């Protein structure tokens, strides 16, 4: 298994005048509504534990007010927690002094914002350079690096334009290029695609996945859109009212939702498009190969369901990339999953 990159432990955030005393109340079991009504404090996050693996995309999903944007801001400490710890690469972010925190933000992390947060008085190139400029990287080198990423997100030719002249999708490409130019190992994306039109959002998701195949960053991605979460997440954490309801790989969340809230959330999802063969296969035990059909472990059900219906195989044998047989899938199990 890959290493844990970011470890969030027993994280609490309470907004209000006297969070420390409110923290005691919360730990004694006072809930969010009661805390607001009786003590006039807002519970932002309650006892969040999350291990984020290196080089994976961790999605944090929830509706507005669930605390997801608060959570991501704890990773680079834009928000101070009330209690708990955030450890990145073995170092506690909360114990850093101003200087080392700035250094951490400059070199380890980069962030993409929901409303882009570009500097309106700087050109696309200057915006992309921003992180390197802050780090006082040599002008020439910075320029080369920035131009490479502008090109990579498909904005060549727009270097000298101002953000106001670009569409939302293009502005967010600048945001992405700015973050990638910084070359941190951690990419924090706060509802990065939520403000975009559906088609452009899909484009951006594809760009992100394509880049991730090549760059292998540790990505923390915030969204309120389940389809987006299922599409790009290696793992998904679901937040509700500052509490983490469930965390796991997309298929687990779909197939065995732990709470009613998660159940409601995943009800309408087209499972065939989200679940891969490897998620639902069982261990091989001497299946008959005569009338079997072979599928790739990373194929979505969507890909082979038509063939299953027309060919009526006895069972499906799942193979990995090296063509080894690693599991099987009975047609009965397949229909159960699709029927839900």
């Amino acid at each position, binding site marked *: 298994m890959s290493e844990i990159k970011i470890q969030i432990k027993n994280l609490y955030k309470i907004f209000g005048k006297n969070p420390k005393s409110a923290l005691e109340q919360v730990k004694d079991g006072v809930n969010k509504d009661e805390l607001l009504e009786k003590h006039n404090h807002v519970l932002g996050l309650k006892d969040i534990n999350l291990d984020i693996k290196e080089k994976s995309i961790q999605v944090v999903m929830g509706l507005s007010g669930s605390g997801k944007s608060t959570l991501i801001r704890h990773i*680079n400490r*834009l928000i101070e927690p009330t209690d708990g710890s955030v450890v990145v690469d073995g170092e506690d972010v909360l114990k850093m002094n101003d200087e080392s925190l*700035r*250094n*951490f*933000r*400059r*070199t380890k*992390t*980069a*962030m993409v*914002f*929901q*409303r882009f*947060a*570009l*500097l*309106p*008085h700087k050109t696309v190139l200057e915006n992309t350079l*921003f*992180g390197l*400029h*802050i*780090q006082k990287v040599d002008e020439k080198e910075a320029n080369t690096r920035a131009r490479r990423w502008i090109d990579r997100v498909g904005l060549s030719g727009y270097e000298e334009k*101002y953000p*106001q*002249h670009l569409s939302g999708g293009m502005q967010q490409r600048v945001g992405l290029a*700015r973050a990638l130019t*910084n070359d941190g190992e951690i990419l*924090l994306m706060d509802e990065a695609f939520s403000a975009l039109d559906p088609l452009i959002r899909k484009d951006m998701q594809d760009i992100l996945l394509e880049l991730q195949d090549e760059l292998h960053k540790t990505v923390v991605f915030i969204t309120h859109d389940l389809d987006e979460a299922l599409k790009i997440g290696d793992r998904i954490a679901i937040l509700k009212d500052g509490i983490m309801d469930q965390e796991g790989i997309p298929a687990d969340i779909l197939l065995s939702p732990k709470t009613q809230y998660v159940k409601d959330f995943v009800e309408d999802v087209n499972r065939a498009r989200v679940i891969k063969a490897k998620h639902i296969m069982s261990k091989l035990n001497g299946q008959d190969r005569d009338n079997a059909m072979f599928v790739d472990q990373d194929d979505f059900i969507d890909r082979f369901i038509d063939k299953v219906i027309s060919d009526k195989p006895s069972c499906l044998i799942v193979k990995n990339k090296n063509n080894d047989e690693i599991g099987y899938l009975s047609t009965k199990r397949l229909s159960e999953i699709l029927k839900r």
Partner: protein
Amino acid sequence: MEDFLSEFPELSRETLRFIKKGFDASYRAFSREYGDAIEAVFDPVLYFLVWFEKLLQNSPWPIVLICFLAVIYFGSRKISVTIGSLFAFLLIGIFGMWEDTMSTVSIIGVCTMLSIGIGIPVGVLMAKSERAQRICTPILDVMQTMPSFVYLIPVVMLLGIGKIPGLLAVVIYAIPPIIRLTNLGIREVDKEVLEAADAFGANPRQKLFQVQLPLALPTIFAGINQTIMMALAMVVIASMIGVKGLGQPVLKAITNQYFAMGLFNGLAIVALAIIFDRVSQSFGHRIQQHRSGSRE
């Protein structure tokens, strides 16, 4: 009892006189003690002001006029404003007000520079610290609402009559807008952009110079424009304490009931105000053009 209700219970005449006398006496003592030292502080400003005024008055007028028009054109990038200014200056010269106008331009110029130099840092301080804002706001309120004659008294007691007290009076009157609007402009900067600067590891200095000030610039420019206008409005009052320029003939016209003289000089002040206003406004517009996407 009836007396108490009909007459406000005031301090006795003797007490009041005692308070006022004591106050004046101690201020007089203070100004006798420190007046020279404080005046010395302002010496560099005085030298600069005198040098600038002499420069404008003693250089051949066509050169000065060409320089003005060049500044106006490159400030506003508008032919119409430039040509309008040319006519205004020609009329001013023909009607014999060139020298006074140069004095006024020089004092307005120096006051504006002083106001910017002091006002922007104070505005930044107010934006950065709640306590500074709490302290400065009432002071600015007093500066803007106190009748200007009232603070002319202590300034004159301290520094006598002349250019520096006039300059101080103008700056006190004209500086509040630039302080207020710098403060406002910085406080209005988009929170998410600031968060982005933080997320990329900008230190407070980088944040101020690369994000906050540039984004606040249009608002700050509105403040500079206001400051210039208020400084112009103050020239007549400042002329009462010996500031040369278009204010003095106006003052003379008031005391002698010379209507035409007052009108000419008044119109010259109006012309200067309009030119300053148009140039600074279109300059302010130009520096923020790319924000509205109106370029190209």
